[in-house]
């Protein structure tokens, strides 16, 4: 649980209390609207006074987010929201700090800060809006765009291999790794709450549709007709089951996950039981759906909490060192410090 205490006497807030008077300027139909609505809905339920919430963003469409949240907020510079948030959290551990970033902001120009934030495990929440495109600069491919993507900057197709954001987070030893999507409000709200509840850096990738420059990038996961076959919702302690009639599952063939049909001697008991505390299973889970077309097996895309673990937070270690130093040496005395160890007198 986050350390931020609730104020019992504070009046109950609603989503409206978290909206600002600023005109929301995302394109009509943008997935960001839904994410904003879900964040505004979740905020009252986590019970933190809004003056103790800070939302920090970088640059990009998603990074306009703080302007629309009636909390403390900062629209910083491209890629650096994670670094700014690190300093704020170190200085003020009691604040609830949320970072809003995108696939370009958080994984390209700010990739370095993202991985270092995760390994240090500041108790902050990273919401990475992944739309697999640069929207604000009007349609260049991003570090999560699929290979061969035709964009303004890649008229002959992109030759970059894309990042897998969750695998990257696992590689940086993130202590909370999850995925959700703009078109599933209930799931997104649940994931936002789980992110908040996790003590440590929470990395939540949110699939977000850019209807102008990359429309339909996640359509197979969001459309009713394909969603059951193409998505897999992870639930703690439950077998990995999906399909229109919950008729399919994932099991292990040795170390390798395989898709199986339920029935004909295959039951839920044979399937992979999800355990978000299992590092090795999480490594497989974030990796195995990279490119279904290439792997031969066609896997559904998992959503939910892939991994969660407990590790001390940077800001707590920092505060602890200060407390220990004061306990052993006593509170610093400026006059003694300025005087130093060796002095001499010059007489008049």
């Amino acid at each position, binding site marked *: 649980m986050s350390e931020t205490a609730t104020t019992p006497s504070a009046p109950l807030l609603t989503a409206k209390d978290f909206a600002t008077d600023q005109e929301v300027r995302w394109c009509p139909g943008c997935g960001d609207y839904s994410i904003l609505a879900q964040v505004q809905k979740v905020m009252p339920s986590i019970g933190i006074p809004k003056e103790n919430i800070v939302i920090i963003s970088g640059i990009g469409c998603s990074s306009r987010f703080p302007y629309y949240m009636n909390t403390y907020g900062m629209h910083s510079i491209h890629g650096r929201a994670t670094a*700014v948030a690190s*300093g*704020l959290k170190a200085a003020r551990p009691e*604040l609830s700090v949320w970072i809003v970033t995108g696939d370009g902001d958080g994984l390209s120009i700010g990739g370095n800060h993202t991985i270092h934030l995760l390994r240090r495990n500041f108790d902050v929440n990273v919401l990475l809006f992944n739309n697999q495109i640069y929207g604000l600069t009007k349609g260049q491919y991003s570090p999560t765009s699929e290979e061969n993507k035709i964009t303004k900057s890649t008229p002959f197709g992109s030759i970059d291999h894309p990042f897998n954001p969750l695998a990257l987070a696992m590689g940086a030893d993130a202590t909370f790794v999850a995925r959700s999507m703009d078109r599933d409000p209930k799931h997104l709200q649940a994931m936002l709450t789980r992110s908040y509840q996790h003590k440590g850096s929470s990395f939540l990738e949110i699939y977000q549709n850019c209807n102008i420059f990359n429309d339909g990038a996640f359509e197979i996961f969001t459309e009713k007709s394909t969603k059951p076959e193409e998505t897999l919702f992870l639930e703690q302690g439950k077998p990995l089951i999906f399909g229109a009639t919950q008729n399919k599952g994932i099991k292990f063939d040795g170390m390798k996950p395989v898709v199986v049909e339920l029935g004909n001697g295959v039951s839920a008991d044979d399937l992979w039981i999800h355990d978000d505390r299992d590092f090795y299973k999480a490594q497989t889970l974030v990796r195995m759906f990279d490119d279904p077309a290439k792997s031969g097996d066609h896997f559904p895309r998992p959503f939910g909490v892939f991994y969660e673990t407990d590790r001390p937070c940077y800001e707590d270690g920092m505060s602890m060192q200060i407390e220990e130093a004061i306990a052993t040496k006593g509170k610093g005395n400026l006059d003694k410090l300025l005087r130093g160890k*060796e002095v001499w007198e010059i007489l008049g």
Partner: protein
Amino acid sequence: MERKEELLQDVVIKFAGDSGDGMQLTGQQFTNNTAMLGIDLATFPDFPAEIRAPIGTLPGVSGFQLHFSSDKVFTPGDIADVLVAMNAAALKVNLKAIKPGGKIIVNTEGFDAKNLRLANYPESVNPLEDGSLDSYELIRIDVTKLTREALKDFPELGNKERDRAKNMFVLGYIYWMYNRSLSNTIDFLQEKFGKKPSILDSNIKVLQAGYNYGDTTETFTTRYKVEKAKMVPGTYRSIMGNQALSLGLIAVGEKSGLEIFLGAYPITPASDILHELSKYKNFGIKTFQAEDEIAAIASAIGASYGGSLGVTATSGPGMALKTEAMGLAVMFEIPLLIINIQRGGPSTGLPTKTEQSDLMQAYYGRNGECPMPVLASSTPSDCFDAVYEAARISIQHMTPVVLLSDGYIANGAEPWKFPTQADLPPITVNFKKGLAEDEPKFQPYRRDEKLARSWAIPGTPGLEHRIGGLEKQDVTGNINYEPENHQHMVNIRQAKVDKIADHIPLQKIDSGPEKGKVLVIGWGSTYGAIKSAALQLQAEGHAVSHAHIRYLRPFPRNLGDMMKNFDHVLVPEINKGQLVKILRDQYLVDAKPYNKVMGVPITKGELVDVIKKML
């Protein structure tokens, strides 16, 4: 032979050897010993960028110069009276900087065939043998052999370990030469090696052996003594620039009540600020070694936003990387200190050598119209006062501030008549606590008479607001792209910085008359050289004055008028002429540059020559 003691007024001594010979430590110890006697001094450590360049070679030479005097000292000295050369390379590198007739103390073992070859002496040429040093007083000591001999009762030490104590022999010898006590160095060794008895005992043994060697041999017929300097009465300590800067930041924290947060990435010659501040956790200082220079400043911005004083310390290449974030801090209008310990540039340049070539970068090196106050420290102890002032301006005027120091003062040492907590001026901080009566909704860019906005930190109910790098409407802080608004905001950000001139002291003449022939204007580490040159010329009866600028942006209000009182204005700088361009630009004054960019300080001697030509 009769021994006599000679009283000297002024001595410049240079310790030079291989990077691994411990010359920095030897110099530091002799410096502390000198300072404790109340003798005025200044030091100049000069070492290679490589941790260990190949042993015995010219690039591997590490030097430490110390100037001490019974008179006031302002520079580490142009030229040495005494050179200690531990090997042939050390002699070769430093020979041009020894006074004719000066003493050269050599470790003869460092002049064997191999060392001579490594120092690029031609085949079969040995400067100790060929008469080329006849104009100096050459003192040969086989330091290596004598050190090994002194340690023959330490069978547990191999020759390699014994040789490591060579510098103690030299130090002991110099202590004898200048009639000093060994006690402070013995105390130092006890503190450093207390847990390793054989290392401790062997070092003390060699130190004493060096002292006794001076006493029992007849290499010198004279011992020297430098009397106490006539300094302002008070209690003094020795201080180095980066150390003074760190103490200054701690003092700011104590006096303002703000938490100090340093975000830094290691870079020469600024890293010592991170090292120093990270020791003082019991003062509540937070230090964060960030993943890069950008994260270092970005984290400091985050901390300042949260109500700490965010600080980042770097050198030129690092400040280049911070540029965009510096612009963000200008837009945010929050306190932030950017400390640049300048070094030789461009690019990686000369990491361990000094230069003043980042003034333009500090002044103008950002996108957009992006004004930011700039201050500079001028001596090691002045770093304390300069950073204190930089912080005061930053906090009271709600603006990021650049403080420029450089490698020369960062590593140099001098006596410091340190202040007490009570002596330091207060720094008041007023976080905004709630809405004003005429403020139904918080207006984050409403300004006070200094044009500073209020500091409203997260956690304050009712003041929730958003700030960002986008252009904003004045008062409300709402995003605004209107042409008139942008013009207004560009003007007001400039006006805010200009207005700081009302809150800083007027420029003083450091020495010399108010009206005269030549006004020498300097900034930063050229202080000592300009001061010494000006004092000499004044003593010779010339109407030469010296003014040294701490507040570089904005300038003190009277600077323009001050320059009008002189026939000529000379601006010496360790760059290609940066302050001089700004002075010419702002005051249309025919100021003349004097520039040298060799990675070394400007000397008093060359300045005297330049100024004389203008008289």
